[in-house]
């Protein structure tokens, strides 16, 4: 009886609150969208996100010897964007942007990129075929973007970790350096997708196998918090997506080069 009345009270409080929200939402949609600047974003990145103490020996060797650098990106849909024509989309997505940045920074050597998009596949489904794929393509560097599909399907984090583990080991055994890329920071779906167990487990695997982890999640979160990008926005999607991927691609190229650079002897 009392609970019922209590519930009624709470419902009316909630209802009052709900009534306010849609009104304000409509107000907000009135002003015309602000045109976005065409210039590439500055996308400042904290240093520690781009440098680690884990090296990429094979990449370093190839750069030193001026041999071709072959990169294989394996990822799900979030490694792509759709901005119209297929060729333009491919160039605009972060792997394409990374390629452009690497070519600019390494004018002396040949950089090749192949992108393998396997939409809707979990880490486990990818990992089983990863060794063979790497053996057949013989890349210097494998960039494995994973975690999103697993988070969406709430795969058991332990199984996820085992799968990532297996994939990393297989790629290394096939003779490639590995970089892991974690899920995107997606504030709109935060209340639906719980990314943190998958982020944590990727960090664990990266540490265990001494593989650099490109922390896409933290980067995008930094940009969202600093106001660089408004990742909540529902409008101007294509332009925003292009700029974010441009920043990610450039950051990834710096990340790779930093890991491939010979480390100065540390004095601790």
């Amino acid at each position, binding site marked *: 009886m*009392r609970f019922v009345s*209590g519930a009624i009270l709470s419902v009316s409080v909630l209802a009052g609150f709900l009534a306010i929200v849609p009104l304000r939402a409509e107000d907000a949609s009135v002003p015309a969208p602000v045109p976005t600047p065409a210039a590439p974003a500055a996308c400042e990145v904290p240093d520690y996100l781009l440098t680690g103490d884990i090296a990429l020996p094979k990449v370093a060797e190839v750069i030193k010897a001026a041999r071709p650098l072959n990169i294989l990106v394996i990822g799900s849909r979030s490694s792509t964007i759709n901005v119209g024509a297929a060729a333009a989309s491919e160039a605009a997505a972060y792997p394409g942007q990374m390629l452009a940045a690497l070519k600019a920074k390494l004018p002396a050597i040949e950089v090749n990129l192949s992108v393998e998009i396997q939409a809707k596949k979990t880490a486990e489904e990818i990992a089983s075929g990863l060794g063979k794929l790497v053996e057949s393509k013989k890349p210097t560097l494998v960039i494995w973007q994973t975690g999103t599909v697993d988070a969406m399907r709430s795969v058991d984090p332990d199984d996820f970790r085992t799968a990532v583990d297996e994939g990393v080991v297989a790629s290394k055994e096939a003779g490639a350096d590995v970089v892991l890329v974690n899920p995107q920071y997606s504030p709109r779906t935060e209340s639906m997708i*719980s990314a943190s167990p998958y982020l944590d487990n990727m960090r664990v695997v990266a*540490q265990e196998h001494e593989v650099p982890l490109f922390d896409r999640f933290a980067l995008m979160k930094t940009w969202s918090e600093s*106001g660089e990008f408004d990742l909540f926005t529902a409008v101007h999607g294509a332009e925003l997506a292009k700029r974010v991927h441009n920043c990610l691609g450039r950051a990834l190229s710096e990340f790779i080069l930093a890991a491939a650079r010979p480390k100065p002897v540390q004095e601790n």
Partner: protein
Amino acid sequence: MTSVADQISGPPLAAEAGVLARDASAAAPAMVRPVASERELRLDLFRGLALWLIFVDHLPQNLLTWLTIRNYGFSDATEIFIFISGYTASFVYGRAMRDAGFVVATARILRRVWQIYVAHVFLFTIFLAEISYVATRFENPLYTEEMGILDFLKEPDITIVQALLLRFRPVNMDVLPLYIVLMLFLPLILWLMRRSADLTLGLSVLLYAATWEFDLYLSAYPNGFWAFNPFAWQLLFVFGAWCAQGGAQRMSRILASPVTLWISIAYLLFAFFVTLTWYVPQFSHLMPKRLEQWMYPISKTDLDVLRFAHFLALAAVTVRFLRKDWPGLKSPWLKPLILCGQHSLEIFCLGVFLAFAGHFILAEFSGGTGLHFVISISGILIMSAAAWLFSWYKHSADKSGSRAKATGGNADLAGGGA
């Protein structure tokens, strides 16, 4: 009589205490445990605090998030909430079982379970509305993949049935299903505890160990598992229940020992430094590799031993320094927290709803730090105001109803604090 008691000890249990006092004077049995006569305000205080922290943690990260305990150690507000819920539920319904028998107590517990279930379904409805809105309005090519999570909206028949079966649970809505399952087993737990409290706790530890050994879990829909594994989390609940059945008193010598205190403090400091390395990656090279490999990942799903130990250490230090008779407990500044703790189910649901609403507002207005802060603070204010309203209502309802009825509704009312 009630008015004085209410002033001091807060309404819900005071009502219960009032009933008990009447029963006691009628039947004149000696009170088995003298502590029972006054409400343990520390429980309300910390449960209120847990509710606030859960709310803040459910919002997107902001300034206030840095004040929540999960940033300073392994355990977080969920541990506090489940432990205190176990404690109060065992306290209230354990008494009901002693006074009115197993069947009546079980019936009351089941009624309480039904209330929590209804609250969960209510929250799910709101969640569904929010999600559907996002699904129809939001088009951002950056997140094509993540938006796939909304595919379940294409088959609402299955989704809704699965939600009613507690198998489909959106993020942030995991605590109530856990609570429902734990409460369902409360009659059994209490029945066992009346035979032997220590044996019950032992069985609980065994189940916990078995969970880790044999990987027991409950599956969820469309795939995956329960984010809070009830087989593991029951340990905290049963431990809370055990403390309420006299375990806390029996532990008092251990709690008073300086050795316990120093071990606890050392462990809390250790946990603090480990957590620090998560947020300040520059420090992470200070962590020994071997320690990392042994320690990580710290499972929240299965209530990692490190988390449980962290909660115990936190509780030991708190009990030591925050005395039961601390005058601050009656200060008006802590009143909002205590009130929230006394209406935990309502305030918890309100908190989950406010977190949804907060997300929504932030998303619609692309709010910066300022708006974040305003939303967090107003959420806490709304929760406090609602708690005050519930108190006021119960208070006045008690006054008019106290003469008419004996025990029936009141045990459940006290359960409102459980």
